[in-house]
């Protein structure tokens, strides 16, 4: 990754320290009026991960698995119940370290709905200039920054800058949103389903733009999507979430070639294929995810898993590291990969082919 070599001058701690470390992040929503007192939705339940400088971490999972909540927690747009953030070696919002305001100067977010995330009554260059202005720049200077940001996302500031959001196409609006994030000068950008609402050809343009920006600016991305092919294209590492928990995390190539967790396998098998010989005849996973209010005590995927055994419903599996093949860690929270778990398939090292 050439981007790791070209670090911005704001990097104090060197390229080897992770840019963002998140430990045991939790967010439970209290349900009101459900009849049951104290019923909670476990939206994000003990998520830990790290992102290296210039790295792109893809997050995939079904809708409702807590991906967007995770993004909002990271941006501190909603308070978390538990968990620690460390940004470039400094604790965020603790007694020491950096505050939320300074985190937001280094971390920005692009939302899914490109129209709703732009003020309909402001010309787009003013929307972009709002961020720099809030960080103390003058009107003129902020506008210069905004126009430069528009140029970075391949939009002509003279042509597009003075237009209103409704005068732009979906792809242009999403570029404007990316420009708005870049105008702050962040080191990390969270893209929450940022290309999901765009059609395929525009999606490709925006993805190529993101890849170029990542190389030019040394940006780290947290790329949230339900679209596996898009995640595979852009991510260095991929994290799979199921009902608020991490079930598998590993290098994109390894995860897509040899997924460890049965849920990841099912997810990958459900992708439509261009190859008629690989088309799926039966559904790889059946049933609905369990109600996030009344969660089963053991593995959350156990009710839908074809390899589930007694041990799976009794205990919660932890993330275990598969013996590293290529240097990058590949972890999964499944008893099949824990030799001491007591699962009948434990430690047999089942491959993708033998199980499908």
């Amino acid at each position, binding site marked *: 990754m050439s981007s790791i070599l070209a670090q911005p001058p704001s990097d104090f701690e060197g390229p080897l320290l992770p840019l963002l470390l998140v430990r045991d992040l939790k967010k439970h929503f209290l349900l009101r009026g459900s009849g049951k007192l104290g019923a909670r939705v476990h939206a994000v339940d003990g998520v830990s991960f790290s992102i290296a400088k210039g790295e792109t971490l893809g997050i995939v999972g079904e809708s409702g698995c807590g991906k967007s909540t995770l993004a909002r927690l990271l941006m501190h747009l909603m308070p978390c119940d538990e968990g620690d953030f460390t940004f470039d070696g400094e604790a965020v919002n603790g007694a020491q370290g950096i505050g939320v*305001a300074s985190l937001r100067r280094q971390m920005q*977010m692009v939302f899914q709905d490109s129209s709703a*995330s732009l003020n*309909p009554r402001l010309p787009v260059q003013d929307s972009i200039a*709002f*961020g720099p202005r809030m*960080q103390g720049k003058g009107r003129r200077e902020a506008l210069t920054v905004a126009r430069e940001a528009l140029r970075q996302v391949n939009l002509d500031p*003279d042509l597009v800058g*003075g237009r209103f959001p409704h*005068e732009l196409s979906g792809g242009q609006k999403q570029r404007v949103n990316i420009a708005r994030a870049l105008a702050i000068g962040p080191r990390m950008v969270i893209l929450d389903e940022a290309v999901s609402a765009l059609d395929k050809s525009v999606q490709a343009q925006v993805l190529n733009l993101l890849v170029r920006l990542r190389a030019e600016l040394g940006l780290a991305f947290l790329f949230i999507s339900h679209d596996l092919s898009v995640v595979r294209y852009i991510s260095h590492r991929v994290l799979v979430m199921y009902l608020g928990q991490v079930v598998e995390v590993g290098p994109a190539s390894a995860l897509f070639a040899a997924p460890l967790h049965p849920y990841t396998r099912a997810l990958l098998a459900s992708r439509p294929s261009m190859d008629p010989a690989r088309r799926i005849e039966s559904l790889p996973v059946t049933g609905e995810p369990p109600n996030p209010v009344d969660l089963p005590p053991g593995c959350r995927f156990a009710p839908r898993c074809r390899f589930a055994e007694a041990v799976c419903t009794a205990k919660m599996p932890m993330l275990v590291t598969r013996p590293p093949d290529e240097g990058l860690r590949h972890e999964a929270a499944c008893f099949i990969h824990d030799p001491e778990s007591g699962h009948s398939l434990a430690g047999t090292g089942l491959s993708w082919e033998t199980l499908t």
Partner: protein
Amino acid sequence: MPASHGYWLGVWRKFCKHPGALLGAFLLLCIVLAAVLAPWVAPFDPNQGGIILRLKPFGYDGHLLGTDELGRDMLSRLIYGARVSLAMGVAPVVGATIIGGGLGIVAGFYGKIANGIVMRVMDVFYAFPSVLLAVAIAGAMGGGLIDGMVALTLVFIPPMCRVAETATAQVRRLDFIEAARATGAGGWAIIRYHVIGNVLGPILVYASSLVSVSMLLSAGLSFLGLSVQPPTPDWGLMLSTLVQSIYVVPWVCALPGAAIFITSVSFSLLSNGLGEAMDVRR
């Protein structure tokens, strides 16, 4: 649309192309000019009358629009009346828009406790019929022009607050507010740059509809002796005193009503046009 222009410049251009808005603006301008230039425009002294000139029809002896029940010239009284009536129609609405609209925006934007406190207080005011509330407040304050205005302002604050609160709560849920918060902006900056522009439309439209209501409520207060006092010409007051003479000179008696009607239509046209001009999608 040209590539670079400010939002308000665009609003102004669209406003100038809106026939209804222009008509409303023209009528209002005429009324305001008549009110300001009353001593020069009015043909007679509005308070000078004679018992033999009572209730004369249109055009009688130089009295273009007839005379009222005390023989005073109707045209002059209507022109002078525009002063008090416009003040009674506009001032309470402006006051209520600033106070109620401001409270509503704050309540809608911050939600939770701020919203609870503001909106529950408004609900208490809502519990009274607006006319009764205005009478009670004006009566408690003693009665007079200023007291009437204050009473009407207080009556209009709760509905204004509710309109602003609803509009703001809708805008607040949109992603661009979230995105603005993600840049580290404080609440006031977000309200100034991102909220006000998006809620001003519904607030202004509602405010303009309140102007005619305010003029009529003020007439009611004057009738009870709680607002404008009798010799002063005021459209609402004229309407209520002339009602008894409706069988003698019906057209003369309808004049103050017509004046109120034209003024309120002008405000509606103006606000309608403004609302459309402020909608950037058109």
